[in-house]
């Protein structure tokens, strides 16, 4: 690999940073309110819930799986918390119940996929519908208004940092550490690279795969908590399509849908900030709201396109020359 190619490769490896930078520069030029501390803080706060869910999704995607049920899990967790809160349960109980629902959803997915061998797409599609149905039954399809304690959570600060941001950053850091610095993380990457080889190498593949779905479930419920602290109500559409937001954010961050490649930092974290920046910028520019999905989708395309360039470059570099004239 010569120096030029290595440089190109390094740039493509970090393409999500580059995209974020370009978007920030463009939006700063277009709107003078964009590049301010308040606005950047706002972007971070709004991106926090998606990021937390996407961290869990990244683990799943790295094993070459997918979890379509995280949005439904968020809804169920929120619905249970809402029910308890309305019944005057203390906040701590609501919180524990939410995390418990996340854990339960993760365990169900883990059981279906790692023990019964159902392919992740189908298994989690099933739990998506079951979760949604269960949530609607619990809430009787009515919105539940939550007590002030939940909203207070959103404005709470830890050492001057808003709680959602603190939670997002700490989960990202811990996630990245687990991924790169622990045995479990290496096993996740190995399984995503080649499941059969991982099996032969003596990796407890079923347990590792079970683990990633449990992580995804728990982080989905935490994401739901942050969302609740911002919305204050559990509507029947709570968490809808959040699974796609999480997948998109992970993919923009450079995580491969085929497993084995990607991460949380720059990965999911930068991906979420990128999407949120674009949406916030569009609001400032008074763009037609119907345009949002189109623009977000084009960013996803650009990210995937860059990933394609990267793959073909890798393939080209791996081809050995027979002779040098």
């Amino acid at each position, binding site marked *: 690999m010569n120096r030029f190619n290595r440089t190109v490769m390094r740039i493509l490896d970090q393409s999500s940073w580059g995209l974020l930078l370009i978007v920030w520069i463009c939006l700063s030029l277009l709107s003078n309110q964009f590049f301010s501390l308040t606005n950047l803080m706002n972007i971070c706060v709004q991106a926090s819930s998606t990021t937390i869910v996407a961290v869990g999704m990244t683990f799943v995607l790295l094993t070459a799986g997918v979890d379509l049920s995280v949005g439904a899990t968020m809804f169920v967790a929120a619905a249970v918390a809402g029910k308890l809160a309305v019944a005057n349960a203390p906040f701590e109980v609501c919180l524990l119940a939410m995390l418990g629902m996340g854990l339960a959803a993760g365990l169900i997915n883990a059981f279906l996929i790692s023990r019964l061998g159902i392919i992740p797409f189908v298994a989690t599609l099933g739990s998506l519908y079951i979760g949604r149905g269960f949530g609607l039954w619990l809430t009787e399809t009515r919105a539940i208004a939550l007590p002030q304690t939940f909203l207070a959570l959103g404005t709470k600060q830890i050492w001057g940092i808003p709680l959602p941001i603190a939670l997002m950053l700490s989960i990202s850091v811990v996630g990245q550490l687990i991924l790169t610095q622990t*045995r479990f993380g290496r096993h996740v990457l190995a399984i995503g690279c080649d499941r059969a*080889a991982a099996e032969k190498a003596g990796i407890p593949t079923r347990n590792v795969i079970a683990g990633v779905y449990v992580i995804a479930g728990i982080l989905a419920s935490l994401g739901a908590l942050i969302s609740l602290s911002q919305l204050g109500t559990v509507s029947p559409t709570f968490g809808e399509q959040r699974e796609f937001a999480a997948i998109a954010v992970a993919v923009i961050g450079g995580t491969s849908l085929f497993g*084995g*490649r990607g991460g949380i930092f720059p990965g999911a974290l930068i991906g979420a900030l990128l999407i949120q920046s674009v949406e916030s910028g569009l609001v400032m520019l008074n763009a037609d709201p119907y345009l949002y999905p189109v623009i977000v989708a084009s960013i996803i395309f650009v990210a995937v396109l860059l990933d394609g360039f990267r793959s073909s470059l890798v393939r080209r570099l791996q081809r050995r*020359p027979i002779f040098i*004239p």
Partner: protein
Amino acid sequence: MTARTPKTGLEIRKVSKAFNRVPVLHPLDLCIEPGRILGLLGQNGAGKSTLMNILGGNLQPDTGEMRLHGAPYTPQSSREARRLGVGMVHQELNLFSNLTISENLFLINPPTKLGLIRRKQMNRAAELLLKQVGLALDPATLVSQLSAGQQQLVELARVLADDAQIVLLDEPTTSLSDGETAHFMQLIRRLAQESRAIIWISHAIDDVLNHCDRVAVLRDGALVADEPTRAITAQGLVQKMIGRPVTQLYPARNSTVKAQAKVILRVDNLSQPQIIADINLELRAGEVLGIFGLMGAGRSEFARILMGLDRHVSGTIWLNQRILRGSPRRRSQQGLGLVTENRRIDGILPESSVTENMSLVAIDRFVTAIGGWIYPQRLRLAIESMRESVQLQSRLSNSQALKTLSGGNQQKTILGKWFLNDPRVLILDEPTRGIDVAAKHEVYQLIHHFADRGNGALVISSDLDELLGICDRLLVMSLGRITGEFLRSTFDRERILTAAFAQHLRLSRGAQKQ
């Protein structure tokens, strides 16, 4: 494993295994001592890999018992086998390309502190292991940047990382060049000297005779020989493997190609920077033309360019007096076919049936002109008769997934796939790699019959004996150029090998040309 009594090693008694009540291994006894290398030979499907998988903990035997250093040995998984000191290097590479060398080596038990991997310590330990297998690489290198040979050595280092006392090698040298193989065998020898017991599966009979202390031969799941190497000859081994005396591996070939026979494939000045330079050749009807060369001479790349899988910047290819260009599909419609080098990677659809694999190329001949509906009866008949002509094992079902077939039957299916399309020229890249002796003979016959029908075969192989045995004419490639041409009457091993090294030795081309 505290009380390890030396000189016992691994002992197998009356071990057998059946799949779906079909016996794959009949009860057999085998013993391997520390410090020794046991060569395990047998045709494909003889049960070698099953035996290895039982030893390596991937499969559990139906009957019998195994003892490791005198203690009962009943591994329930490869993980447990590794913990007990039985390590295995598989035929295919089993490393993770997205991880570094040291991460691969310490995947199961990395050194950790508070759950976090201690990278410095891990890399230092990896460096020591790499030194043991003779690799001077940074342990933090990603495995994707290594060559196949280097990866195989890393696999071996992984076995050493577990401190395995019993090392199982399942055809580890198939993806290695000659130089790498020699180095690999030297290493194995040294590992044995460090009082490890080694079992080595191979198809390379000469290598086995040169490097092993004992040879065991499996045939149809039964142990038919277990003797010291010096007590047996290559001829005797082949006989044991086949179960009958071999008259000749290569079918008789009377060079019948007439000089006036029509040229069906012509290549003029074909070049692609850094890959091939100025390739010229003519292939006549009825001819089997061999292309010999060292690993990395550009033979497979040349084949891919002919088939249209890779680009070329200059030169022309003529098939039947018509210029050949366009997609591989168009070229196959014009009468060209390519049997690729790596069956498992790009030769077969492993999950699909024999029928689907065989009809893959020629399916256009069995569908309605409008709508592309398959004529099931016509297709079935064609598949049946093709099965017969490529001599596919008769007990195989047409609906069986191709990955469940032995290498020989897979290769015959691939040949059938191309024959169904009735090509004029078939390129065969390493057509007998990893298939057993009996199937090899049949593949050679199929190639000859194909040529005798007025077609041309272009056979690429690294096995010079094979090419000398079956070809009418031989071209030699060296670093992307043709450096020699030999007629069957002038075949001369030494001069062919010199030509194969021609570009390496920077000899002038003219001197090598016949």
